[in-house]
Protein backbone atom coordinates (compact mmCIF):
# COMPACT_ATOMS: atom_id res chain seq x y z
CA UNK A 1 0.00 0.00 0.00
CA UNK A 2 2.48 2.52 1.14
CA UNK A 3 4.92 1.61 -1.61
CA UNK A 4 2.56 3.29 -4.06
CA UNK A 5 4.55 6.28 -5.13
CA UNK A 6 3.64 9.54 -6.71
CA UNK A 7 3.28 9.12 -10.48
CA UNK A 8 6.63 9.80 -12.13
CA UNK A 9 6.45 12.42 -14.88
CA UNK A 10 7.05 10.10 -17.84
CA UNK A 11 8.94 11.11 -20.97
CA UNK A 12 10.79 14.24 -20.01
CA UNK A 13 14.32 13.05 -19.28
CA UNK A 14 15.72 15.83 -17.02
CA UNK A 15 12.63 15.71 -14.88
CA UNK A 16 13.03 11.96 -14.52
CA UNK A 17 16.61 12.37 -13.35
CA UNK A 18 15.46 15.01 -10.92
CA UNK A 19 12.74 12.70 -9.66
CA UNK A 20 15.26 9.93 -9.14
CA UNK A 21 17.42 12.25 -7.08
CA UNK A 22 14.42 13.46 -5.15
CA UNK A 23 14.03 9.86 -4.06
CA UNK A 24 17.65 9.11 -3.28
CA UNK A 25 18.57 12.48 -1.85
CA UNK A 26 16.90 12.12 1.55
CA UNK A 27 18.47 8.70 2.03
CA UNK A 28 22.04 9.67 1.20
CA UNK A 29 23.12 11.53 4.36
CA UNK A 30 22.17 8.63 6.62
CA UNK A 31 23.65 6.07 4.24
CA UNK A 32 26.93 7.92 3.75
CA UNK A 33 27.28 8.61 7.45
CA UNK A 34 26.68 4.96 8.30
CA UNK A 35 29.14 3.73 5.70
CA UNK A 36 31.87 6.17 6.74
CA UNK A 37 31.56 5.67 10.48
CA UNK A 38 30.81 1.94 10.62
CA UNK A 39 32.24 0.34 7.48
CA UNK A 40 35.56 2.15 7.14
CA UNK A 41 36.75 1.14 10.62
CA UNK A 42 35.93 -2.46 9.77
CA UNK A 43 37.96 -2.19 6.58
CA UNK A 44 40.82 -0.84 8.68
CA UNK A 45 40.37 -3.66 11.17
CA UNK A 46 40.69 -6.10 8.28
CA UNK A 47 43.97 -4.50 7.13
CA UNK A 48 45.43 -4.38 10.65
CA UNK A 49 44.49 -8.00 11.23
CA UNK A 50 47.10 -9.02 8.65
CA UNK A 51 49.91 -7.09 10.32
CA UNK A 52 52.21 -7.80 13.19
CA UNK A 53 51.53 -4.84 15.38
CA UNK A 54 51.95 -4.64 19.10
CA UNK A 55 52.00 -1.09 20.42
CA UNK A 56 54.47 -2.15 23.12
CA UNK A 57 57.02 -3.14 20.44
CA UNK A 58 56.69 -0.42 17.78
CA UNK A 59 59.78 -1.55 15.83
CA UNK A 60 58.50 -5.00 15.06
CA UNK A 61 55.73 -3.97 12.69
CA UNK A 62 55.29 -5.99 9.56
CA UNK A 63 53.11 -8.16 7.39
CA UNK A 64 51.86 -11.18 9.27
CA UNK A 65 49.76 -12.91 6.62
CA UNK A 66 47.43 -15.24 8.53
CA UNK A 67 49.67 -15.33 11.60
CA UNK A 68 47.24 -13.45 13.79
CA UNK A 69 44.35 -15.63 12.68
CA UNK A 70 46.13 -18.91 13.48
CA UNK A 71 47.25 -17.42 16.80
CA UNK A 72 43.72 -16.31 17.63
CA UNK A 73 42.06 -19.55 16.55
CA UNK A 74 44.69 -21.57 18.43
CA UNK A 75 44.18 -19.53 21.57
CA UNK A 76 42.14 -21.56 24.08
CA UNK A 77 41.18 -18.36 25.89
CA UNK A 78 39.55 -16.92 22.80
CA UNK A 79 37.80 -20.16 21.98
CA UNK A 80 36.41 -20.30 25.49
CA UNK A 81 35.23 -16.70 25.22
CA UNK A 82 33.37 -17.60 22.00
CA UNK A 83 31.60 -20.35 23.92
CA UNK A 84 30.94 -17.97 26.82
CA UNK A 85 29.42 -15.42 24.44
CA UNK A 86 27.11 -18.02 22.94
CA UNK A 87 26.00 -19.37 26.33
CA UNK A 88 25.54 -15.90 27.79
CA UNK A 89 23.56 -14.59 24.82
CA UNK A 90 21.36 -17.63 24.30
CA UNK A 91 20.51 -18.04 27.98
CA UNK A 92 19.78 -14.35 28.59
CA UNK A 93 17.68 -13.99 25.42
CA UNK A 94 15.73 -17.20 25.96
CA UNK A 95 15.03 -16.72 29.65
CA UNK A 96 14.11 -13.06 29.34
CA UNK A 97 11.93 -13.78 26.30
CA UNK A 98 9.97 -16.51 28.11
CA UNK A 99 9.68 -14.46 31.30
CA UNK A 100 8.79 -11.38 29.27
CA UNK A 101 6.04 -13.31 27.48
CA UNK A 102 4.58 -14.58 30.75
CA UNK A 103 4.60 -11.08 32.24
CA UNK A 104 3.18 -9.52 29.09
CA UNK A 105 0.29 -12.02 29.25
CA UNK A 106 -0.29 -11.05 32.89
CA UNK A 107 -0.27 -7.35 32.05
CA UNK A 108 -2.54 -7.80 29.05
CA UNK A 109 -5.44 -8.41 31.48
CA UNK A 110 -7.24 -5.71 33.36
CA UNK A 111 -6.54 -5.47 37.08
CA UNK A 112 -6.27 -2.77 39.69
CA UNK A 113 -3.09 -0.73 39.39
CA UNK A 114 -2.00 -2.19 36.05
CA UNK A 115 -0.30 1.07 35.06
CA UNK A 116 1.68 1.13 38.32
CA UNK A 117 2.80 -2.48 37.87
CA UNK A 118 3.93 -1.74 34.31
CA UNK A 119 5.85 1.32 35.48
CA UNK A 120 7.60 -0.74 38.15
CA UNK A 121 8.44 -3.42 35.60
CA UNK A 122 10.05 -0.98 33.17
CA UNK A 123 12.48 0.34 35.79
CA UNK A 124 15.23 -2.32 35.38
CA UNK A 125 15.51 -1.50 31.67
CA UNK A 126 15.92 2.21 32.44
CA UNK A 127 18.67 1.91 35.07
CA UNK A 128 22.05 2.67 33.47
CA UNK A 129 23.65 -0.77 32.82
CA UNK A 130 26.88 0.05 34.68
CA UNK A 131 24.84 1.27 37.63
CA UNK A 132 22.75 -1.91 37.49
CA UNK A 133 25.88 -4.07 37.40
CA UNK A 134 27.33 -2.21 40.39
CA UNK A 135 24.04 -2.55 42.22
CA UNK A 136 23.98 -6.31 41.69
CA UNK A 137 27.64 -6.78 42.51
CA UNK A 138 27.83 -4.72 45.68
CA UNK A 139 24.34 -4.21 47.08
CA UNK A 140 22.84 -7.60 46.24
CA UNK A 141 25.53 -10.28 45.70
CA UNK A 142 28.12 -9.12 48.23
CA UNK A 143 28.73 -12.03 50.63
CA UNK A 144 29.13 -9.81 53.70
CA UNK A 145 26.51 -7.12 53.46
CA UNK A 146 24.63 -7.87 50.24
CA UNK A 147 20.85 -8.01 50.35
CA UNK A 148 20.61 -11.69 49.35
CA UNK A 149 22.71 -12.90 52.25
CA UNK A 150 21.09 -10.31 54.49
CA UNK A 151 17.70 -11.86 53.71
CA UNK A 152 19.12 -15.33 54.46
CA UNK A 153 20.37 -14.09 57.84
CA UNK A 154 17.07 -12.36 58.48
CA UNK A 155 15.11 -15.55 57.87
CA UNK A 156 17.39 -18.27 59.22
CA UNK A 157 19.22 -16.35 61.95
CA UNK A 158 22.94 -15.67 62.37
CA UNK A 159 23.97 -19.22 61.44
CA UNK A 160 22.45 -19.01 57.94
CA UNK A 161 24.45 -20.07 54.89
CA UNK A 162 26.25 -17.08 53.35
CA UNK A 163 27.18 -18.06 49.81
CA UNK A 164 29.63 -15.96 47.82
CA UNK A 165 27.30 -15.65 44.83
CA UNK A 166 29.75 -14.31 42.29
CA UNK A 167 32.63 -16.72 42.92
CA UNK A 168 30.37 -19.71 43.51
CA UNK A 169 28.23 -19.20 40.42
CA UNK A 170 29.85 -16.49 38.25
CA UNK A 171 27.96 -17.22 35.04
CA UNK A 172 24.65 -17.54 36.85
CA UNK A 173 25.27 -14.19 38.59
CA UNK A 174 25.97 -12.37 35.33
CA UNK A 175 23.06 -14.03 33.53
CA UNK A 176 20.62 -13.25 36.37
CA UNK A 177 21.47 -9.57 36.41
CA UNK A 178 21.13 -9.38 32.62
CA UNK A 179 17.84 -11.28 32.63
CA UNK A 180 16.57 -8.77 35.19
CA UNK A 181 17.58 -5.90 32.88
CA UNK A 182 16.28 -7.38 29.62
CA UNK A 183 13.02 -9.04 30.67
CA UNK A 184 11.25 -5.64 30.80
CA UNK A 185 12.48 -4.90 27.27
CA UNK A 186 11.03 -8.18 25.97
CA UNK A 187 7.86 -7.58 27.98
CA UNK A 188 7.35 -4.16 26.37
CA UNK A 189 7.75 -5.54 22.84
CA UNK A 190 5.43 -8.50 23.49
CA UNK A 191 2.87 -6.34 25.29
CA UNK A 192 2.69 -4.12 22.23
CA UNK A 193 2.14 -7.30 20.22
CA UNK A 194 -0.63 -8.54 22.49
CA UNK A 195 -2.42 -5.22 22.40
CA UNK A 196 -2.35 -5.11 18.62
CA UNK A 197 -4.36 -8.33 18.33
CA UNK A 198 -7.71 -7.74 16.73
CA UNK A 199 -10.41 -7.79 19.42
CA UNK A 200 -12.97 -9.00 16.85
CA UNK A 201 -10.99 -12.15 16.12
CA UNK A 202 -10.56 -12.86 19.83
CA UNK A 203 -14.27 -12.32 20.46
CA UNK A 204 -15.18 -14.55 17.54
CA UNK A 205 -12.92 -17.31 18.88
CA UNK A 206 -14.55 -17.06 22.31
CA UNK A 207 -18.03 -17.16 20.83
CA UNK A 208 -17.01 -20.30 18.95
CA UNK A 209 -16.17 -21.80 22.33
CA UNK A 210 -12.37 -21.74 22.09
CA UNK A 211 -10.72 -22.07 25.51
CA UNK A 212 -7.96 -19.80 26.75
CA UNK A 213 -5.31 -22.32 25.75
CA UNK A 214 -6.68 -22.77 22.24
CA UNK A 215 -6.88 -19.00 21.74
CA UNK A 216 -3.27 -18.70 22.90
CA UNK A 217 -1.99 -21.48 20.63
CA UNK A 218 -3.90 -20.69 17.48
CA UNK A 219 -4.35 -16.92 17.59
CA UNK A 220 -2.01 -15.25 20.08
CA UNK A 221 1.15 -17.21 19.38
CA UNK A 222 1.04 -16.91 15.56
CA UNK A 223 0.28 -13.20 15.92
CA UNK A 224 3.18 -12.80 18.36
CA UNK A 225 5.67 -14.59 16.11
CA UNK A 226 7.02 -11.38 14.62
CA UNK A 227 7.25 -9.74 18.02
CA UNK A 228 9.07 -12.74 19.48
CA UNK A 229 11.50 -12.65 16.57
CA UNK A 230 12.01 -8.93 16.97
CA UNK A 231 12.69 -9.32 20.69
CA UNK A 232 15.13 -12.16 20.06
CA UNK A 233 16.86 -10.22 17.29
CA UNK A 234 17.31 -6.99 19.26
CA UNK A 235 18.18 -8.97 22.39
CA UNK A 236 20.91 -10.85 20.51
CA UNK A 237 22.28 -7.64 18.98
CA UNK A 238 22.68 -5.98 22.35
CA UNK A 239 23.61 -8.97 24.55
CA UNK A 240 26.27 -10.40 22.20
CA UNK A 241 27.97 -7.05 22.61
CA UNK A 242 27.50 -6.86 26.36
CA UNK A 243 30.49 -5.38 28.07
CA UNK A 244 29.21 -3.56 31.14
CA UNK A 245 27.96 -6.54 33.15
CA UNK A 246 30.97 -8.76 32.46
CA UNK A 247 33.40 -5.91 33.06
CA UNK A 248 31.77 -4.79 36.29
CA UNK A 249 30.52 -7.95 37.98
CA UNK A 250 33.36 -10.41 37.34
CA UNK A 251 35.96 -8.36 35.41
CA UNK A 252 36.00 -11.22 32.93
CA UNK A 253 37.21 -13.66 35.55
CA UNK A 254 35.92 -17.12 36.46
CA UNK A 255 35.14 -18.09 32.88
CA UNK A 256 32.81 -15.19 32.14
CA UNK A 257 35.04 -13.32 29.67
CA UNK A 258 32.95 -12.89 26.54
CA UNK A 259 34.23 -11.74 23.15
CA UNK A 260 33.86 -7.98 23.62
CA UNK A 261 35.68 -8.26 26.93
CA UNK A 262 38.46 -10.42 25.47
CA UNK A 263 38.97 -8.12 22.49
CA UNK A 264 38.97 -5.12 24.83
CA UNK A 265 41.70 -6.79 26.87
CA UNK A 266 43.81 -7.85 23.90
CA UNK A 267 43.71 -4.33 22.59
CA UNK A 268 43.59 -2.20 25.71
CA UNK A 269 45.85 -4.14 28.06
CA UNK A 270 48.02 -6.39 25.89
CA UNK A 271 48.21 -3.71 23.15
CA UNK A 272 48.32 -6.46 20.55
CA UNK A 273 46.60 -4.58 17.73
CA UNK A 274 47.10 -7.28 15.09
CA UNK A 275 45.63 -10.03 17.18
CA UNK A 276 42.76 -7.92 18.52
CA UNK A 277 41.85 -7.04 14.94
CA UNK A 278 41.98 -10.66 13.80
CA UNK A 279 39.69 -11.59 16.69
CA UNK A 280 37.39 -8.73 15.67
CA UNK A 281 37.26 -9.92 12.06
CA UNK A 282 36.44 -13.47 13.15
CA UNK A 283 33.64 -12.13 15.33
CA UNK A 284 32.30 -10.07 12.44
CA UNK A 285 32.32 -13.05 10.07
CA UNK A 286 30.55 -15.19 12.67
CA UNK A 287 27.93 -12.51 13.31
CA UNK A 288 27.35 -12.00 9.59
CA UNK A 289 26.69 -15.70 9.04
CA UNK A 290 24.29 -15.91 11.96
CA UNK A 291 22.60 -12.60 11.10
CA UNK A 292 22.10 -13.43 7.43
CA UNK A 293 20.73 -16.83 8.31
CA UNK A 294 18.45 -15.44 10.99
CA UNK A 295 17.11 -12.54 8.96
CA UNK A 296 16.87 -14.05 5.49
CA UNK A 297 15.99 -17.65 6.21
CA UNK A 298 14.26 -17.96 9.55
CA UNK A 299 12.75 -14.57 10.23
CA UNK A 300 9.45 -13.34 8.93
CA UNK A 301 10.36 -9.73 9.74
CA UNK A 302 11.92 -8.83 6.43
CA UNK A 303 9.58 -10.98 4.37
CA UNK A 304 6.62 -9.13 5.74
CA UNK A 305 8.38 -5.86 5.01
CA UNK A 306 9.06 -6.91 1.43
CA UNK A 307 5.46 -7.95 0.84
CA UNK A 308 4.13 -4.53 1.57
Amino acid at each position, binding site marked *: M*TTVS*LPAPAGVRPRRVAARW*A*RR*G*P*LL*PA*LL*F*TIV*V*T*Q*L*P*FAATLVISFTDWNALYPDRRGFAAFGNYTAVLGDPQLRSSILTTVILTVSVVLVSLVLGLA*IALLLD*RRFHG*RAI*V*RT*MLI*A*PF*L*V*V*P*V*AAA*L*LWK*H*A*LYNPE*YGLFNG*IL*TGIFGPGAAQPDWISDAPMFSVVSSLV*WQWTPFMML*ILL*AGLQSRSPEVLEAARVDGAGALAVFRHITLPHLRQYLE*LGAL*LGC*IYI*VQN*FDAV*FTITAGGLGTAN*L*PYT*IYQTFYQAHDYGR*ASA*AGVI*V*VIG*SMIVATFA*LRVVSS*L*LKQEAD*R
Partner: protein
Amino acid sequence: MTQTLSAPTGTAVPPPARPRRVRRGRGGAVLGVVAWIVGIAFFFPVAWMVFTSLHSEQAAATNPPDLTAPLTTDGYREFFATNPWPYLINSATASVVSTALVVVLALFAGYALAIRPVRKWSDVLFFFLTTKMLPAVAGLLPVYLIAQHIGLLDNIWLMVILYTAMNLPIAVWMMHSFLAEVPVAILEAAALDGARLPTVMRRVILPIASPGIAATALICFIFAWNEMLFARVLTGVVAGTAPVFLTSFVTTQGLFLAKVCAAATAISIPVLVAGFAAQNKLVQGLSLGAVK
Protein backbone atom coordinates in the same frame (compact mmCIF):
# COMPACT_ATOMS: atom_id res chain seq x y z
CA MET B 1 -37.61 -30.02 29.43
CA THR B 2 -37.12 -31.35 32.92
CA GLN B 3 -34.09 -29.12 33.25
CA THR B 4 -35.98 -25.89 32.58
CA LEU B 5 -38.65 -27.02 34.99
CA SER B 6 -36.17 -27.71 37.74
CA ALA B 7 -34.69 -24.24 37.47
CA PRO B 8 -36.85 -22.31 39.92
CA THR B 9 -36.10 -18.78 38.70
CA GLY B 10 -36.30 -19.68 35.04
CA THR B 11 -33.55 -17.29 33.90
CA ALA B 12 -32.69 -17.22 30.23
CA VAL B 13 -28.94 -17.47 30.82
CA PRO B 14 -27.62 -20.60 29.07
CA PRO B 15 -26.19 -22.92 31.74
CA PRO B 16 -22.57 -23.29 30.53
CA ALA B 17 -21.90 -19.55 30.25
CA ARG B 18 -22.32 -18.62 33.87
CA PRO B 19 -19.77 -20.88 35.60
CA ARG B 20 -17.16 -20.02 32.96
CA ARG B 21 -17.56 -16.30 33.47
CA VAL B 22 -17.36 -16.68 37.24
CA ARG B 23 -14.21 -18.78 36.95
CA ARG B 24 -12.62 -16.22 34.67
CA GLY B 25 -13.33 -13.43 37.13
CA ARG B 26 -11.80 -15.18 40.09
CA GLY B 27 -8.78 -16.34 38.06
CA GLY B 28 -8.36 -12.75 36.91
CA ALA B 29 -8.14 -11.48 40.48
CA VAL B 30 -5.51 -14.10 41.35
CA LEU B 31 -3.50 -13.25 38.24
CA GLY B 32 -3.73 -9.57 39.14
CA VAL B 33 -2.13 -10.36 42.50
CA VAL B 34 0.54 -12.43 40.73
CA ALA B 35 1.23 -9.48 38.41
CA TRP B 36 1.64 -7.19 41.41
CA ILE B 37 4.09 -9.61 43.05
CA VAL B 38 6.13 -9.89 39.83
CA GLY B 39 6.13 -6.11 39.40
CA ILE B 40 7.33 -5.54 42.96
CA ALA B 41 9.99 -8.25 42.57
CA PHE B 42 11.42 -6.58 39.44
CA PHE B 43 11.24 -3.12 40.95
CA PHE B 44 12.73 -4.21 44.25
CA PRO B 45 16.45 -3.96 43.34
CA VAL B 46 15.84 -0.40 42.07
CA ALA B 47 14.00 0.49 45.27
CA TRP B 48 16.82 -1.12 47.25
CA MET B 49 19.38 0.99 45.39
CA VAL B 50 17.50 4.18 46.29
CA PHE B 51 16.87 2.97 49.86
CA THR B 52 20.56 2.12 50.39
CA SER B 53 21.62 5.45 48.89
CA LEU B 54 19.68 7.21 51.66
CA HIS B 55 21.60 5.61 54.51
CA SER B 56 24.88 6.17 56.32
CA GLU B 57 27.70 3.85 55.21
CA GLN B 58 27.45 2.04 58.49
CA ALA B 59 23.72 1.37 58.21
CA ALA B 60 24.04 0.39 54.53
CA ALA B 61 26.56 -2.37 55.27
CA THR B 62 24.68 -4.27 57.97
CA ASN B 63 23.73 -7.92 57.72
CA PRO B 64 20.82 -8.53 58.11
CA PRO B 65 19.71 -5.18 56.66
CA ASP B 66 18.62 -2.59 59.18
CA LEU B 67 15.31 -1.32 57.85
CA THR B 68 14.77 1.17 60.68
CA ALA B 69 18.06 3.06 60.37
CA PRO B 70 17.61 6.83 60.05
CA LEU B 71 17.67 8.24 56.53
CA THR B 72 20.33 10.69 55.42
CA THR B 73 21.35 12.40 52.20
CA ASP B 74 25.07 12.17 53.03
CA GLY B 75 25.64 9.72 50.18
CA TYR B 76 24.35 12.25 47.65
CA ARG B 77 26.21 15.12 49.27
CA GLU B 78 29.46 13.16 49.06
CA PHE B 79 28.76 12.11 45.47
CA PHE B 80 28.19 15.69 44.36
CA ALA B 81 31.22 16.79 46.38
CA THR B 82 33.37 14.74 43.95
CA ASN B 83 32.18 17.14 41.24
CA PRO B 84 30.44 14.82 38.78
CA TRP B 85 29.07 17.79 36.81
CA PRO B 86 31.60 17.74 33.94
CA TYR B 87 30.81 14.06 33.38
CA LEU B 88 27.06 14.61 33.54
CA ILE B 89 27.35 17.53 31.13
CA ASN B 90 29.44 15.40 28.76
CA SER B 91 26.83 12.63 28.86
CA ALA B 92 24.04 15.12 28.28
CA THR B 93 25.89 16.68 25.34
CA ALA B 94 26.70 13.35 23.71
CA SER B 95 23.19 11.95 24.25
CA VAL B 96 21.14 15.01 23.29
CA VAL B 97 23.18 16.11 20.28
CA SER B 98 23.57 12.59 18.88
CA THR B 99 19.85 11.94 19.38
CA ALA B 100 18.97 15.14 17.50
CA LEU B 101 21.31 14.18 14.64
CA VAL B 102 19.95 10.64 14.52
CA VAL B 103 16.35 11.84 14.39
CA VAL B 104 17.00 14.24 11.50
CA LEU B 105 19.04 11.75 9.46
CA ALA B 106 16.62 8.89 10.15
CA LEU B 107 13.59 11.02 9.33
CA PHE B 108 14.86 11.75 5.82
CA ALA B 109 16.08 8.18 5.34
CA GLY B 110 12.73 6.85 6.54
CA TYR B 111 11.01 9.13 4.03
CA ALA B 112 13.16 7.71 1.22
CA LEU B 113 12.49 4.15 2.35
CA ALA B 114 8.81 4.29 3.20
CA ILE B 115 7.08 7.16 1.45
CA ARG B 116 8.89 7.56 -1.85
CA PRO B 117 10.78 4.27 -1.81
CA VAL B 118 14.08 4.09 -3.60
CA ARG B 119 14.63 0.89 -5.59
CA LYS B 120 15.76 -2.11 -3.57
CA TRP B 121 14.65 -0.31 -0.44
CA SER B 122 14.34 -3.50 1.59
CA ASP B 123 18.00 -4.26 0.80
CA VAL B 124 18.93 -0.82 2.11
CA LEU B 125 16.98 -1.52 5.27
CA PHE B 126 18.74 -4.86 5.58
CA PHE B 127 22.09 -3.13 5.18
CA PHE B 128 21.30 -0.74 8.02
CA LEU B 129 20.33 -3.60 10.28
CA THR B 130 23.46 -5.63 9.50
CA THR B 131 25.68 -2.72 10.52
CA LYS B 132 23.99 -2.98 13.90
CA MET B 133 24.81 -6.67 14.09
CA LEU B 134 28.51 -6.19 13.62
CA PRO B 135 29.97 -6.12 17.10
CA ALA B 136 31.04 -2.54 17.67
CA VAL B 137 34.08 -3.72 19.58
CA ALA B 138 35.61 -4.98 16.32
CA GLY B 139 35.80 -1.42 15.03
CA LEU B 140 37.06 0.04 18.26
CA LEU B 141 40.77 -0.14 17.49
CA PRO B 142 40.72 1.70 14.14
CA VAL B 143 38.42 4.32 15.62
CA TYR B 144 40.94 4.74 18.42
CA LEU B 145 43.86 5.03 15.99
CA ILE B 146 42.05 7.45 13.67
CA ALA B 147 40.89 9.56 16.60
CA GLN B 148 44.43 9.63 17.96
CA HIS B 149 45.75 10.64 14.54
CA ILE B 150 43.37 13.56 14.04
CA GLY B 151 43.45 14.61 17.68
CA LEU B 152 39.88 13.68 18.57
CA LEU B 153 40.75 11.40 21.48
CA ASP B 154 39.15 12.49 24.72
CA ASN B 155 36.84 14.81 22.80
CA ILE B 156 33.10 14.69 23.38
CA TRP B 157 32.33 15.38 19.69
CA LEU B 158 33.88 12.05 18.81
CA MET B 159 31.34 10.43 21.11
CA VAL B 160 28.57 12.43 19.43
CA ILE B 161 29.63 11.02 16.04
CA LEU B 162 29.94 7.46 17.34
CA TYR B 163 26.63 7.49 19.21
CA THR B 164 24.93 8.85 16.11
CA ALA B 165 26.32 5.95 14.10
CA MET B 166 25.45 3.50 16.86
CA ASN B 167 21.77 4.46 16.98
CA LEU B 168 21.15 5.41 13.36
CA PRO B 169 20.37 1.88 12.04
CA ILE B 170 17.69 1.16 14.64
CA ALA B 171 16.31 4.68 14.23
CA VAL B 172 16.07 4.29 10.43
CA TRP B 173 14.26 1.01 10.93
CA MET B 174 11.83 2.53 13.42
CA MET B 175 11.26 5.69 11.43
CA HIS B 176 10.59 3.63 8.31
CA SER B 177 7.82 1.73 10.05
CA PHE B 178 6.30 4.87 11.55
CA LEU B 179 6.36 6.76 8.25
CA ALA B 180 4.82 3.80 6.45
CA GLU B 181 1.69 4.65 8.44
CA VAL B 182 1.34 8.07 6.82
CA PRO B 183 -1.58 7.89 4.36
CA VAL B 184 -0.45 8.23 0.75
CA ALA B 185 -3.52 10.27 -0.21
CA ILE B 186 -2.44 13.15 2.03
CA LEU B 187 1.00 13.19 0.46
CA GLU B 188 -0.44 13.15 -3.02
CA ALA B 189 -2.67 16.06 -2.14
CA ALA B 190 0.33 17.96 -0.81
CA ALA B 191 2.28 17.19 -3.98
CA LEU B 192 -0.61 18.43 -6.14
CA ASP B 193 -0.55 21.66 -4.16
CA GLY B 194 3.08 21.97 -5.18
CA ALA B 195 4.60 21.46 -1.75
CA ARG B 196 8.31 20.71 -1.73
CA LEU B 197 10.07 18.21 0.49
CA PRO B 198 10.87 20.55 3.43
CA THR B 199 7.28 21.79 3.50
CA VAL B 200 5.87 18.27 3.23
CA MET B 201 8.14 17.19 6.06
CA ARG B 202 7.22 20.04 8.33
CA ARG B 203 3.52 20.41 7.59
CA VAL B 204 2.40 16.88 6.78
CA ILE B 205 4.78 14.19 8.00
CA LEU B 206 5.97 15.68 11.27
CA PRO B 207 2.51 16.12 12.80
CA ILE B 208 1.44 12.59 11.86
CA ALA B 209 4.68 10.84 12.80
CA SER B 210 5.51 12.82 15.92
CA PRO B 211 4.69 10.02 18.41
CA GLY B 212 7.01 7.74 16.45
CA ILE B 213 9.70 10.40 16.34
CA ALA B 214 9.41 10.85 20.09
CA ALA B 215 9.71 7.09 20.65
CA THR B 216 12.77 6.88 18.40
CA ALA B 217 14.39 9.82 20.16
CA LEU B 218 13.74 8.34 23.59
CA ILE B 219 15.30 5.00 22.72
CA CYS B 220 18.35 6.63 21.10
CA PHE B 221 18.77 8.87 24.16
CA ILE B 222 18.66 5.87 26.51
CA PHE B 223 21.25 3.88 24.56
CA ALA B 224 23.57 6.90 24.20
CA TRP B 225 23.33 7.85 27.87
CA ASN B 226 24.05 4.21 28.87
CA GLU B 227 27.00 3.50 26.55
CA MET B 228 30.25 2.64 28.30
CA LEU B 229 32.73 0.58 26.23
CA PHE B 230 33.56 3.28 23.66
CA ALA B 231 33.49 6.03 26.25
CA ARG B 232 35.85 4.07 28.43
CA VAL B 233 38.41 3.56 25.70
CA LEU B 234 38.10 6.85 23.82
CA THR B 235 37.53 9.42 26.54
CA GLY B 236 39.48 10.25 29.65
CA VAL B 237 39.89 13.31 31.74
CA VAL B 238 38.13 15.91 29.65
CA ALA B 239 35.38 14.06 27.82
CA GLY B 240 34.57 11.26 30.27
CA THR B 241 30.87 10.41 30.43
CA ALA B 242 28.75 9.57 33.46
CA PRO B 243 29.03 5.74 33.16
CA VAL B 244 32.83 6.03 32.92
CA PHE B 245 32.84 8.30 35.93
CA LEU B 246 30.74 5.80 37.84
CA THR B 247 33.24 2.96 37.33
CA SER B 248 36.29 5.09 38.13
CA PHE B 249 34.43 6.55 41.11
CA VAL B 250 34.15 3.06 42.57
CA THR B 251 37.74 1.95 42.00
CA THR B 252 39.40 5.12 43.23
CA GLN B 253 37.28 5.57 46.30
CA GLY B 254 37.30 2.04 47.61
CA LEU B 255 33.87 0.75 48.41
CA PHE B 256 31.32 2.95 50.04
CA LEU B 257 28.02 1.26 49.39
CA ALA B 258 25.71 4.15 50.19
CA LYS B 259 27.76 6.57 48.11
CA VAL B 260 27.94 4.14 45.17
CA CYS B 261 24.17 3.65 45.33
CA ALA B 262 23.68 7.42 45.46
CA ALA B 263 25.91 7.82 42.40
CA ALA B 264 24.16 5.00 40.53
CA THR B 265 20.76 6.51 41.34
CA ALA B 266 21.78 10.04 40.38
CA ILE B 267 23.19 8.90 37.03
CA SER B 268 20.13 6.76 36.25
CA ILE B 269 17.60 9.46 37.11
CA PRO B 270 17.51 11.26 33.73
CA VAL B 271 16.73 8.01 31.91
CA LEU B 272 14.30 6.80 34.59
CA VAL B 273 12.35 10.06 34.48
CA ALA B 274 12.28 10.20 30.67
CA GLY B 275 11.32 6.55 30.42
CA PHE B 276 8.56 6.69 33.02
CA ALA B 277 7.13 9.87 31.50
CA ALA B 278 7.00 8.42 28.00
CA GLN B 279 6.39 4.75 28.67
CA ASN B 280 3.53 4.50 26.20
CA LYS B 281 5.76 5.81 23.45
CA LEU B 282 8.44 3.38 24.58
CA VAL B 283 6.07 0.46 24.07
CA GLN B 284 5.12 1.77 20.65
CA GLY B 285 8.71 2.43 19.65
CA LEU B 286 10.10 -0.89 20.71
CA SER B 287 7.69 -2.83 18.58
CA LEU B 288 9.06 -0.94 15.54
CA GLY B 289 8.98 -2.93 12.29
CA ALA B 290 6.68 -5.62 13.59
CA VAL B 291 3.59 -3.46 14.00
CA LYS B 292 1.69 -4.24 10.86
